[in-house]
């Protein structure tokens, strides 16, 4: 019996100790009519060897050539040591660190993670992570509404409108809107200007929002005027939620320094920090904030303290905000963090350091410039927006991009993400990205495939 260790003798002895004659008898409190679970639709078991062969055949079907898609999930190099260590059974098969004395490994790792994320974002505190970037934005919006409720009420401002400045990831916005909708909170999108960047004049209508969301770099890869957005938010008593790419933070000003006062909440997806793309999950969502908002921060938080003998140790803290104590009044229903991925990200950041992360960031930036040069050398391909960018770019291919992407895909290359499904006015556009992994030869192959698809 796979994974069940009982011998017939074991079963006999155990039933005797219980005083039952059969395993079935242990279910005698359940009405017989209910015990008819029909499993006939499920196949017979296969042994590990066959299962792995079946799965390998399917995985192999999906192996592609180089990936030029980004849009929130990036094909970075992951140092070999990251998953060698994070994948150890001691990390992999532990549970939530409820018994702190038996979980110092996970707890200290999370404390180090919180420290690194606070340093990257320029905030004072971080939680132990939430599910992903989209749900992190949803939680950040709920958090901002809670944190600014009293002040908004005093000014007679609706506490139910949060404004999104410019092009924030459309899938993050959908997830976040679905998460906050049932509490009557509305995410208003102000759209983007002709230059692809935030249009500040649209933010205030119809009345000042309780919080403003801005993504840096934005969904199109463009650098947003975040200092101005931060100033606008402060002047209008709105909290500022920053959505950021952690790799970019090695290079770009941290949200804690935007404008004069910085952002209030910083969130995003940690996938770029040593997590494989893996169809988008599991990765992890991060939320960092100011010390003054820490009690509104959802999810687990680890604190450093001392034990009875005065030794340094780590424990979950501020648990009275959480569902297992606060029940219906908790800050969120969230229980899990993405502990394993946080472990990997911590090791990744330890190995990369500020210098390594900056090199990865600048290398991505340089590779993307090279790629954009190569692609726009094709007649009829042009950059859709001007202005500085980090490691993604919108290119206009002059014909419906869905079909173009499909033709490129037939060569095995994942040639960016076609934008028509998110923005009808950008139906001829692809969002493309080149990470530090992309070689000159791969960029040339992409150029060739794209030219071929365009009949050039």
């Amino acid at each position, binding site marked *: 019996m796979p994974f069940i260790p009982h011998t017939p003798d074991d079963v006999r002895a155990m039933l005797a100790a219980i005083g039952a004659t059969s395993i079935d008898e242990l279910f005698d409190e359940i009405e017989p009519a209910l015990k008819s679970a029909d499993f006939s639709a499920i196949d017979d078991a296969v042994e590990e060897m066959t299962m792995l062969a079946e799965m390998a055949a399917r995985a192999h079907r999906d192996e592609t050539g180089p990936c030029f898609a980004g849009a929130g999930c990036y094909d970075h190099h992951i140092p070999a040591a990251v998953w060698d260590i994070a994948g150890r059974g001691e990390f992999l098969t532990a549970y939530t660190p409820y018994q702190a004395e038996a979980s110092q490994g996970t707890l200290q790792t999370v404390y180090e993670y919180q420290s690194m994320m606070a340093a990257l974002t320029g905030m004072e505190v971080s939680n132990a992570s939430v599910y992903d970037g989209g749900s992190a934005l949803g939680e950040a919006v709920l958090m901002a509404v809670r944190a600014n409720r009293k002040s908004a009420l005093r000014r007679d401002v609706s506490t139910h409108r949060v404004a999104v400045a410019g092009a924030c990831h459309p899938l993050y916005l959908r997830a976040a809107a679905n998460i906050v909708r049932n509490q009557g909170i509305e995410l208003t999108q102000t759209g983007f200007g002709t230059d692809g960047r935030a249009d500040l004049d649209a933010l205030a209508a119809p009345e000042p929002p309780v919080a403003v969301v801005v993504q840096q770099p934005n969904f199109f890869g463009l650098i947003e005027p975040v200092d101005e957005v931060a100033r606008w938010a402060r002047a209008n008593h709105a909290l500022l939620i920053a959505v950021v790419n952690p790799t970019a933070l090695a290079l770009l000003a941290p949200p804690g320094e935007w404008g004069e006062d910085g952002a209030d909440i910083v969130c995003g997806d940690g996938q770029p920090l040593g997590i494989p793309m893996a169809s988008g999950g599991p990765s992890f969502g991060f939320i960092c904030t100011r010390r003054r908002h820490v009690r509104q921060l959802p999810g687990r938080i680890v604190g450093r303290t001392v034990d009875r003998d005065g030794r340094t140790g780590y424990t979950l803290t501020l*648990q*009275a905000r959480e569902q297992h*104590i606060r029940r219906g009044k908790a800050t969120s229903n969230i229980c899990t963090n993405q502990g394993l991925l946080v472990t990997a990200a911590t090791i990744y950041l330890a190995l990369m350091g500020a210098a390594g992360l900056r090199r990865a960031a600048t290398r991505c930036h340089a590779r993307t410039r090279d790629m954009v040069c190569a692609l726009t050398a094709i007649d009829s391909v042009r950059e859709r927006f001007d202005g500085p960018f980090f490691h993604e770019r919108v290119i206009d291919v002059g014909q419906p991009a869905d079909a173009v992407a499909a033709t490129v895909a037939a060569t095995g290359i994942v040639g960016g993400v076609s934008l028509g499904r998110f923005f009808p006015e950008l139906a001829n556009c692809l969002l493309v990205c080149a990470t530090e992994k992309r070689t000159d030869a791969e960029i040339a192959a992409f150029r060739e495939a794209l030219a071929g698809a365009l009949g050039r």
Partner: protein
Amino acid sequence: MSETPTELRYASSHEWARLEDGVVVVGISDFAQESLGDVVYVELPEVGQELQAGAEAGVIESVKAAADIYSPVSGKVIAANEILNAAPERVNQDPYGDGWFFKAAPTDAAELDELLDADAYREHCESEEAERD
């Protein structure tokens, strides 16, 4: 056994109230602070906030528990004990003194008469304790 000063009035949700020159001072009882354990955080109402008798006016947290503070009277907050922000342990050390929560200008001081006196409150605590065993 926890202390239950006889000059105070009590709510069954474990707040105490004391009338001082027309102002009602509110805190939580010795019994309540003992059951909660070490208090680590107190969320106070804001000065100027309107209060309804029996409605939430704050939150108190220990490591393993959290409880709402209900206002025993209707009225308006005229002072909050800011000391508790930095030193929540005062609630444990001196629940009827330094550990007070807020002061209210009551709409109707007669509401105090609807609260429990010390004897009735002690009885209430004993029955809660018995239930817990």
